[in-house]
């Protein structure tokens, strides 16, 4: 690493050390706990992989297992960030571009930062490598084959990220790109539905063809000395490097301002205008004005638009495989397909509607503190806006389901709406607390979230199940009593408890906001560092 790269790393370390004393201690502890639990879970998987691979088993079986495992690693590394609309940490190129830094140096750092989008896979591969190293059948040098495989994944992820970031910086093309992603996701399902499943099966079975990067890695990592496998592995790594570098260069010359300006602001149509004006007809000011402002601001934020569109398109497609299955377990999931998609949409919307409600429009937070409005009214307006968008999202999901002629009964509709709204009630309650206790400035122009996908999944694993406990109890009641009435009765009780939880959290959030107003404004006015993550 040369002096400039070292200086960037040094400045980033200083940034983190400077930020540490100012960070929210409870938020930090929670973050560390969530991280420890999540990555601990992956360490267990890594240990399991090590145990399995350290046994000198049948080489053919091990090749199949290793190829399949490495394919899953590749898919996780490349697909999960897209699924979560998250890009991981990356260099703040806008700030570094003014300095005389060779592009190769910047690319090197950027590639290293791709690790942040899939730390889980690195942990897993360390376990795989350790297992192979302990296996007496395999030569000591063989596990080193995992190194080019990691480089391949890092470079490929860097290239993909650059493409997605540029696409999502373009108005309208961004929404079209989501539909394209949806089509890609829907392709396997469409093949199955069109009776072309044999072609799909052939394709899936060829996962361990020796020309694939995962199979070549699996063969070399077991001590295979066939030069062709080594060439295949290095060839893929070189191609991924060239792809990543090419896309990085394109991003360096990309002018996001120009792209944003290419589509000038237009007056919204009659329907859009009515959608934005309804709060003023329903609520007296300042509530009406606040909700209207929130709806306008959020609907114009690229990140919000992206996750909203993903909710009723991508969400439907990725859960489609379970929709038509009749087996026990999966059969139950397929019956609740609509509700499942709606809850997935809540996961996507969580970042923009619940957890950090002041982060997107940080200047407005300052205004709210000086305007003659009760802070509780501001929070309530934000919550009403969140629930409005949740309702809109569910309606969009149902509309798409109806278009696809999926069986949607009245009862299922009622279930989807009520379950999602009850979970939302708990989420806004928690969100009010996190928004006032741990506010973070977020750039609304960035469509892709810069945090790692792992953090989002940790939230999925930890926070959402907790918020979903009351709903889970409703399903348990339905199962135990085989009664829809029991289900909706428990759901009604859950919503009554939710209302109390909401009231308590609102009181606490308002008190915290009044007490920490200076800190909140200060935190929300902080700019980016060298690395956004």
């Amino acid at each position, binding site marked *: 690493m040369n002096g400039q790269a070292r200086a960037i790393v040094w400045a980033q370390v200083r940034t*983190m050390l400077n930020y540490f004393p100012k960070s929210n201690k409870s938020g930090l502890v929670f973050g560390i706990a969530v991280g420890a639990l999540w990555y601990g879970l992956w360490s267990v998987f890594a240990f399991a992989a090590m145990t399995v691979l350290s046994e000198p088993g049948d080489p053919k079986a091990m090749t199949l297992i290793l190829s399949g495992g490495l394919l899953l690693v590749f898919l996780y590394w490349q697909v999960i960030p897209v699924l979560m609309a998250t890009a991981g940490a990356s260099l703040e190129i806008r700030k570094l571009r003014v*300095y005389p830094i060779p592009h190769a140096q910047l690319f090197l750092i950027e590639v290293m930062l791709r690790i942040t989008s899939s730390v889980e896979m690195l942990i897993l591969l360390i376990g795989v490598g350790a297992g192979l190293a302990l296996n007496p059948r395999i030569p000591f040098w063989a596990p080193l084959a995992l190194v080019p495989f990691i480089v391949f994944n890092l470079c490929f992820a860097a290239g993909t990220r650059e493409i997605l970031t540029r696409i999502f910086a373009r108005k309208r093309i961004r929404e079209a790109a989501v539909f394209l992603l949806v089509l890609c996701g829907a392709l396997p399902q469409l093949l199955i539905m069109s009776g072309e499943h044999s072609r799909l099966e052939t394709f899936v079975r060829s996962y361990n063809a020796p020309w694939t990067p995962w199979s070549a890695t699996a063969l070399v990592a077991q001590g295979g000395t066939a030069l062709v496998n080594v060439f295949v592995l290095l060839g893929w790594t070189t191609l991924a490097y060239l792809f990543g570098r090419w896309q990085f260069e394109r991003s360096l010359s990309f002018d996001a301002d120009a792209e944003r300006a290419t589509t000038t602001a237009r007056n919204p149509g009659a329907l859009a205008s009515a959608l934005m004006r309804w709060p003023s007809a329903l609520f007296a000011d300042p509530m009406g004005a606040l909700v209207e402002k929130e709806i306008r601001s959020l609907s114009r934020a690229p990140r919000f638009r992206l996750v909203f569109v993903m909710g009723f398109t991508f969400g439907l497609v990725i859960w489609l495989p379970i929709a038509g299955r009749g087996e026990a377990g999966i059969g139950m999931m397929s019956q609740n397909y609509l509700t499942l998609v709606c809850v997935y949409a809540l996961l996507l919307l969580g970042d923009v509607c619940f957890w950090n409600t002041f982060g997107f429009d940080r200047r407005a937070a300052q205004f709210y503190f000086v305007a003659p409005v009760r802070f509780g009214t501001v929070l309530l307006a934000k919550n009403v806006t969140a629930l409005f968008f949740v309702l809109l999202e569910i309606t969009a999901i149902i509309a798409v389901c109806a278009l696809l002629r999926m069986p949607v009964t009245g009862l299922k509709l009622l279930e989807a709406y009520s379950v999602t709204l009850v979970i939302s009630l708990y989420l806004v309650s928690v969100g009010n607390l996190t928004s006032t206790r741990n506010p973070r400035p977020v750039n609304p122009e960035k469509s892709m979230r810069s945090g790692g996908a792992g953090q989002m999944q940790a939230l999925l694993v930890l926070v959402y199940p907790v918020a979903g406990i009351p709903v889970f109890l409703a399903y348990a009641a339905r199962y135990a009593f085989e009664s829809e009435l029991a289900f909706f009765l428990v759901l009604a009780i859950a919503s009554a408890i939710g209302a109390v939880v909401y009231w308590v959290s609102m009181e606490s959030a308002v008190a915290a906001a009044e007490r920490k107003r200076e800190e909140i404004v200060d935190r929300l006015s902080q700019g980016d560092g060298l690395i956004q993550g």
Partner: protein
Amino acid sequence: MDQAPAIAVRELRKVYGAKAAVDGLTLTVPQGCFFGFLGPNGAGKTTTIRMLMGLAPPTSGEIELLGLRMPSHAVEIKKQIGLVPDETLLFDHLTGLEFIEFVGRMYALDRKVARDRARELLALFELSGSERKLIGEYSKGMRKRVAMAAALIHRPKLFLMDEPFEGVDAVGARLMKEILLDQVRHGATIFLTSHVLEVVERLCDRVAIINDGRLVIDESMSALRSGSETLEDIFVRVVGAERHTEMLDWL
């Protein structure tokens, strides 16, 4: 000796959607010149300076800085440029000292040299008392001062400055002006945008005014002073800003 101009732009154009932010700008700034680049809000000043800094690629046209073409010689050019950019390019979570040292190291200064110079520059800009304070906690004027201190660390030949005096108090502005004049006396070139016309009138050798992306005046200050008009009069006349404002009834 025949020196290449510090800045030479030809038919520079930057189009955002249907609007040309900069439209056919041709400009030459000789070395050792204190050049003021003026214009009303949205005239294209910041877009021009962003193109000169290499932050925004031009739609068409040519840029040559210190005799080298952009973007083909971007790294060599950037090594010789000192930037006072808009505030968004500062790093809020670094202290003033750390930021200046970091910038020095970006220009390939030895780490110890960068740190020593950073301390000296902080003292020169009267920021030593805020050495441990984060830039995010600085006032607007302090942010401008730290940005200018960082721009000086590698002794550049050309300074590109976007509103360097914005939000700076009178004492700080006086200090900054003295330092800039001293740099020009030592052969550096300064290209600055500013809305403070009095400062431009007092400091600059040459002034260009841009309006709606087009160059409307490019004159030496002495030629502009030869008439009876002040720079403000000329500015208001050429950008067509003399409008009748009617008071609102309710106001």
